[in-house]
Every structure is written in structure tokens, then in C-alpha cells.
């Protein structure tokens, strides 16, 4: 399978992970050659992080693994903890997702690297270690020596991630496992970290396992792709080949539901339903319930991973029969004609923001200027994007519009009513503004009150608008967002992220608003679910003539939904214009940087 005579660096065979009797991942096989970069791609709950931890032997308590993990001829699963410790860091090292919790908050950043160097005889003296720390920091692109003396909380997320990477590399491992190393970072920083990771991997000829939910990222830097779903591998192959011609319907679905960054499409292809738990699909193909091609045979047992051609594997037993259809869909998607979005009307603006300023009182009374002099317009029926990184003030603007924050200065006019200070408005005006503008929040897990049933939440929202509260209206709202009326009796804890976000949208729609402020409404959702929700937004706009203020950091998402965008940088609007124009020919250097940071697919890298 590995091709050459040389032994692969890492060979994982039949790795199964379980929590007591509940299976998390079943019989995974993986091979990592020396100097190779592989990606484990999966949505939340696919078991990708635990797989990485099982390889490094650091599973949390109560979770156990069986099978074989062989590193260069040594079976890691059979080693004692004391032996494993000699391998971790020296031969296998890890970088985790959250840069802030990965570093010890009480240790200076340089000491994290120093600590890893300590055991080695060549760095016995303090001076030699200090010199080495400096060299290691330079390797991860930190030239400023002062950084080594700073505490983690004084550094930015990207900087912390660099320190963590330098610490992970300090013992010169042969294999680095990076678990979502860029997910918690800003778009531009994300690109920097990924470029750095790639450079270091090449220079050291190190093997790299990249764990990510981001297909585009995986295809852009990895040679081999392992697609993990609900605890089992569905497809394995070389990145370029998998991208060009996926063999498994799930891989195809993922590829299609990624909003393309290059073109705007009428409707995104989405996968229905949501990711099941590994324990629920032990005896069937994990994807069968969501697959358009599923037949009786798919539910009859777990299909094994089978080779389809040289170095390609798929767990789809019907692959032979359906490959033609898969290819057709893939080709259709690649050649989708871009559509030009219609422009909104030009008169009677719905939202007008003039010279908005919002200053927060920070630590020790220092003012934090979150928004400085922002002006924007939203026309009826228009969908406007507000793009920026974390800290750019985009969320603050949204919160000012719906009255959750009161601006320090500036004017807000909603449907002709001055609405800068909700507290100072007449009661009738306030009620009218609230029926005009509503908000959808980012985190689907806390956007609904965990103690209230779905029906209760919607009834309350209906009541707030003064309209009659009847079970029929609740049902109508649920159906409007693509859920069945039976959802009214469910509690949020029994809903998936996508379903919760749909309920949140239904709640906002209950007052029949004319505009929705959507604050990163899909960024916390799985890729396959993201497309469903984006399609919902598009459909609702068409059916109800809704306007949107779509707040996001994701250019691919904004491209699909917004007709006009504002680019926000450090509290100021640096560029504004029709989406196609801004993304196609960006004027401001920041916009250009933002666009370049979006990972491109493997095929586009080569062309």
C-alpha cells in the first residue's frame, strides 16, 4: 500500500476508540510516509481530534483505544507511559487548536521552548539554551527577541500559536500533529500560520498530520486526504485526485457545499440532515441516512474500505454504479455559471447609519474605540455584507443597530425612525423598530434558552410582536425555516447546530421584520450544514423580500449572499462597493490581504 520498500514513518492499523461501551471511531487505517503531509478531514463529531490524541497516546480519561499504532517499527500502543514520554516531543509532537489555553499562562513564552530543550545534553548551559530559543523563534518568524520574555496574555493569538509551534518543534520531532492549528485565528493570521507550518514541514522534511474541518485548506497543503465521518473513514486518496474526482458521495457533498470563493451561485448544493454519532451508525454506512444514492445494501452493514485504483480507497459499496452520476455533478459544479446579483432599489433606505462611534471603557479606564466614524446604508430588499476580522468592530455595529448597545456618537435611522438610543425612544417607536429589525446570533448552542422548548421560544416571540399566538402560527414559522411542526415540542439540547440556528431564524422572523442582522450565523456550523442554512437565507430573502446585514469574516460566504459589501478594518470602513467589484478588484491593501488569505484549492494552486 505504501509503495516503496522503505517502512512508513507511521502506520495506524485497525485503530478503534471508545468511551466505555460507546464507540467513537472504528477500525481506522492510516499510513504516513516520511516527509509526507496528510490531512484528516471531518466535521464536528467525526472523531478526528480523538484519533490524533490516540496516535500521540494522550486520550482523555475514560476513553480507550485498541488497534495498532506503529511509529518507525515501535508499537506505541504497547509502550509504558515512561517509554511514551521519550517519544512524545522527540519523535511525535502536537499543536492544538486554542493558542491561548495551550500555553501555560504563568510561564514566559520563551520558557515554553526552553523547557523542551532542557533534557538535551547540548543545551545544558543556560546561555546555550537562550541562544537556541532565539534561533527557534526565528524559525517560526519571530525576530523580536523581546517576545520571548512576554507572558502569553500579552501576545496575540497568532503569536501564541507561533510560540506553541516552536515549542512543539523544539525537540525536532519526525511527526507533527496539528489539530485545527488555524481555526481559532483571524483569516489573515490563519494564512500566515498555515504558510509557516508548510515551510517548516518542508525545510525539516518532517511528516505532518493536519486535522481540519476545512476541505479547502486540506486540499491546498496536503498530499493525501483521509475523510473521516461519524468515526469511520469514508475515502482516502491523493489530494488532487480526490478533489478532481471524489469516489464517495459524502466527499462530493462536502466539496459541493463549500461555498466557492470565486463565483456566486444561484443555490449551494447541500447535504440534508446532520452528522450522526458514531454509536448510532455502527451497523450501517455512516452516511447512508443523508446519501441520495443509499439503497438497502448501505444499511445492511458497515461497508469496508476497499481499493478502487492505485492509492485510492473508498468505503462506498455502490461506487462502481454511481461514479458516473458523481462525476457529472462535480463537473457541473466546476463549470457553474456565475450569476450577477440583482441590485436593490435606490430610494427610501431602510437603515441609515451616520458617523457611528462606539467607545468602550477598558481596563483601568482606558477607552477602547471599537467603532470609529462608520456610515452605511441598507436599501429595502438588499443584502449587505460587513466583512472584517475579530476586533474590527463589526459585531458592535450590528448590536448598535438592534439596540443592544448604545452608540457613543452618531446617528442610526431605521425605517425613518431615529434609533440611536433605544432607551430615549418613545415606546411606540421602539416597538416599531423592533418589529423592523431583528438579529441572528453566531453561537447556535447558546442562542436558544436551554430550558425552553422550541414552541415556547417561538410563542414568546410571536407574543412580543402583539400578533395572536396560535399553534398554527408556530407551525408555520417552523415550516418556513425548513423544519417540521413536530419540532415545537423539542428542547434545544436535542437539536443539532443547524436545527438550532433554523429555530433562531424562525424566532427572529416571528415579528415579521424587514431586515435581519446576521452575526456570523453559519461560522459555527459544519460545512455540510452551512450550505443548508445559507440556502435558507437566500430563499427567505426571495420569499419575504428581506434585507440582510450579513456580518462575517468569511469572504466565500459573503460572496454567496451579499450584493454589496463594506470592508471594516479596526473600526473604520476601508472599502465599499458591489461584492463582485470589491472581491474581484480590491482597492484597499487590507481588502487585498483578506482576499489572498482565503485558501485556494489544490487544482487552482497548480494552475
Amino acid at each position: 500500500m505504501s509503495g516503496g520498500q522503505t517502512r512508513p514513518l507511521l502506520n495506524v492499523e485497525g485503530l478503534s476508540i471508545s468511551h466505555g461501551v460507546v464507540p467513537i471511531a472504528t477500525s481506522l487505517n492510516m499510513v504516513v510516509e516520511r516527509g509526507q503531509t496528510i490531512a484528516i478531514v471531518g466535521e464536528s463529531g467525526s472523531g478526528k481530534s480523538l484519533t490524533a490524541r490516540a496516535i500521540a497516546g494522550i486520550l482523555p480519561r475514560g476513553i480507550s483505544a485498541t488497534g495498532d499504532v506503529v511509529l518507525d517499527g515501535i508499537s506505541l500502543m504497547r509502550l509504558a507511559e515512561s517509554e511514551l514520554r521519550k517519544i512524545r516531543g522527540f519523535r511525535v509532537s502536537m499543536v492544538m487548536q486554542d493558542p491561548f489555553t495551550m500555553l501555560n499562562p504563568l510561564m514566559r513564552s520563551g520558557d515554553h521552548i526552553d523547557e523542551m530543550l532542557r533534557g538535551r545534553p547540548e543545551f545544558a548551559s543556560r546561555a546555550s539554551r537562550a541562544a537556541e530559543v532565539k534561533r527557534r523563534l526565528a524559525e517560526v518568524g519571530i525576530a523580536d527577541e523581546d517576545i520571548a520574555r512576554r507572558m502569553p496574555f500579552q501576545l496575540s493569538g497568532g503569536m501564541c500559536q507561533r510560540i506553541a509551534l516552536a515549542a512543539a518543534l523544539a525537540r525536532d520531532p519526525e511527526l507533527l500533529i496539528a489539530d485545527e492549528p488555524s481555526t481559532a485565528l483571524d483569516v489573515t493570521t490563519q494564512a500566515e500560520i498555515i504558510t509557516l507550518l508548510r515551510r517548516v514541514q518542508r525545510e525539516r522534511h518532517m511528516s505532518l498530520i493536519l486535522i481540519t474541518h476545512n476541505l479547502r485548506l486540506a486540499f491546498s497543503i496536503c498530499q493525501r486526504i483521509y475523510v473521516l465521518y461519524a468515526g469511520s473513514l469514508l475515502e482516502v486518496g491523493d489530494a488532487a485526485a480526490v478533489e478532481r474526482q471524489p469516489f464517495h458521495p459524502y466527499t462530493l457533498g462536502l466539496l459541493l457545499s463549500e461555498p466557492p470563493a470565486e463565483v456566486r451561485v444561484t443555490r449551494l448544493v447541500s447535504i440534508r440532515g446532520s452528522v450522526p454519532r458514531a454509536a448510532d451508525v455502527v451497523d450501517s454506512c455512516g452516511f447512508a441516512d443523508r446519501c441520495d444514492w443509499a439503497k438497502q445494501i448501505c444499511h445492511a452493514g458497515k461497508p469496508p474500505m476497499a481499493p478502487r485504483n492505485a492509492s485510492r480507497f473508498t468505503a462506498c459499496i455502490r461506487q462502481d454504479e454511481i461514479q458516473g452520476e458523481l462525476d457529472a455533478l462535480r463537473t457541473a459544479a466546476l463549470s457553474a455559471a456565475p450569476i450577477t446579483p440583482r441590485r436593490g432599489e435606490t430610494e427610501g433606505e431602510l437603515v441609515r447609519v451616520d458617523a457611528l462611534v462606539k467607545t468602550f471603557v477598558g481596563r483601568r479606564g482606558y477607552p477602547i474605540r471599537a467603532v470609529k466614524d462608520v456610515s452605511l446604508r441598507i436599501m429595502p430588499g438588499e443584502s449587505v455584507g460587513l466583512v472584517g476580522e475579530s476586533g474590527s468592530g463589526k459585531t458592535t455595529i450590528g448590536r448598535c443597530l438592534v439596540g443592544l448597545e448604545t452608540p457613543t456618537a452618531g446617528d442610526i435611522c431605521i425605517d425613518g425612525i431615529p434609533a440611536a438610543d433605544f432607551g430615549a425612544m418613545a415606546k411606540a417607536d421602539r416597538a416599531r423598530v423592533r418589529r423592523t429589525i431583528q438579529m441572528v446570533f453566531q453561537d447556535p448552542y447558546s442562542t436558544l434558552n436551554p430550558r425552553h422548548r422550541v414552541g415556547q421560544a417561538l410563542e414568546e416571540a410571536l407574543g412580543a410582536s402583539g400578533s395572536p399566538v396560535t399553534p398554527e402560527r408556530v407551525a408555520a414559522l417552523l415550516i418556513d425555516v425548513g423544519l417540521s411542526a413536530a419540532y415545537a415540542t423539542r428542547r434545544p439540547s436535542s437539536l443539532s447546530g443547524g436545527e438550532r440556528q433554523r429555530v433562531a431564524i424562525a424566532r427572529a422572523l416571528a415579528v415579521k421584520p424587514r431586515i435581519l442582522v446576521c452575526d456570523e450565523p453559519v461560522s459555527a456550523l459544519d460545512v455540510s450544514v452551512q450550505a443548508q442554512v445559507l440556502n435558507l437565507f437566500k430563499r427567505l430573502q426571495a420569499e419575504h423580500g428581506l434585507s440582510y446585514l450579513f456580518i462575517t469574516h468569511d469572504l466565500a460566504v459573503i460572496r454567496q449572499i451579499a450584493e454589496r459589501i463594506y470592508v471594516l478594518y479596526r473600526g473604520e470602513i476601508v472599502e465599499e462597493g458591489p461584492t463582485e467589484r470589491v472581491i474581484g478588484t480590491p482597492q484597499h491593501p487590507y481588502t487585498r490581504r483578506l482576499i489572498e488569505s482565503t485558501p485556494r484549492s489544490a487544482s487552482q494552486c497548480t494552475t
Partner: protein
Amino acid sequence: MSSPASGETRGTKLPWRIPIVILIAALILTVVVVCAVLGDKVSPDSPFLQRLRIGDTPPSATHIAGTDLLGRDILSRVIYGARTALVGPVVVAAGAFAMATLLGLVSGYLGGLVDSAIMRWVDFMFALPGTLVAIVVVGVLGGGYWTAVVVLIVLFTGPDTRIVRSAVLEQRPLPYIDAARTLGISKTRILFIHILPNVLTIILAYVVLDFAFALVNLAGLSFLGLGVEPGAPDWGRMVFENRNILFSNPVALLLPAAMIMLTAVSMNLIGDCLFERLAK
């Protein structure tokens, strides 16, 4: 449109085994509650009947735990004593719960001046030496047991308010509260319909701990003669009355003392367990 049943299994937890210590604690509490409720129906003798002729006797066949100086049956008095041992702490816990919940909700959600005022009052309550204040107030005002209960309610409200406030502060920035605010839901409704159910479990876990503290405090006051009136069967009072016959009938002192300790520890253990389970 996925069927509603598909996600129902999400969030199922692994089976939770009740630790044996908690089972024992629950058993002890059940016994105490049964004694308090049934009283004379389960006691072998009258707790008040004096037998001055026999005086204090060690445990025997007729009096399993012996008798005190006045010849009263110790076991019956301990069984009767469960009433005052439970009623006071229950009232203290309930009172502190009600006041702390109200103050904590208002303080945490409204913030600003109201919050400052309530929190400074809480700071003041923290600065007071609790038991000493109780002794002084009951000593000066009189009124014994029920004055002590009121004093303890006021004293316990302080720390509990802080707990409720911090739990409210945790809920306040969550989007579901923001969503309710953008819909124009009233503050009262947000406080009691949205926030309260989400912080209730944390408060309840703390209230159980209040009960244990109140039990020990009230027993202490009774020991000092500031609690129940003389003659009433009360565990704290019995420890005081029977300290003179420690050598002729040690059970007369040790049994009520052990009951105070066991009940308080059981309640504490259950409170800790609830806290682990609910508040985290």
C-alpha cells in the same frame, strides 16, 4: 426536512453511578426526616416524662440509650429532637434562598447603582462574625430559636446573593438573552422566565449547604442556652444539659452530638454531590 426523532439520542449521558457514601448519607437523612415527621409514633417512650427517682442510668434494656439526670429517656428525646434540628435549618435555607435569589437576580442583571448597593451590603454581611452576631442579637432581643432563625437567614443571604449574582452574570451575555431583548421582552420576564430556570440548579446546590451550616449554628446557639427554651428536646440543648453526666451515661451526650454531626455531614455530602452534578 429531517425527522424529529433523529436527534433525540444526542445529549444522552453515560449512566451515572451513585457513590456509596451518598447512599449512606441519604439513608441517614431519611431516618432523621422520618423521626421528625412521625415523632411520638416511633419513639419508645415520652421524651418529657421525668423519673426523678431513677435519675441518670446507663443504657439498659428498658432505656436503650439510658436516661438523663431527670430520668428522661435519651433515645426518645433524640428522636423528638429531630424536629427542631430540621425545621429551623429548613426555614433558614428556604428564607436565604428566596432573598438571595431575588437580590442576586436584580443585582446581576440590572448592574449599575442597584448592583453596587446590594454588593456593598453583601460585603458588610461578609465582614460580620456570623455566630457572634447571632449570640448578641438573640441575647439582647431574646426570643430564642426563632430569632436565631431570622438572624441566620439574614446572615446567609449575603454569601448566597453573591453566588446567584455570579451565575446570572454568566447567563447575561449569552445570545438567548440578547435575542429576548431585541424582541422587546420585559425585564421581569427575562429575569424570571429566562434567567431564573437556568441558575436555579446552582442555587439549589448551595441551599443544601446552607441547611447544614444552619443546623450546626442553631445547635451551637441551643448549647449556649440561646436557642430552644429549657426542657425542650433539642440536640444542641441535650449536649449542654448532659455534659455533667458524661461519665455515668456518655451516650446521653454522644448520641445527640453524633446526630448533629451525621446530619450536617450527610447534607454537606449531598450538597457537594448535587453541585458536581448540576452546577458544572
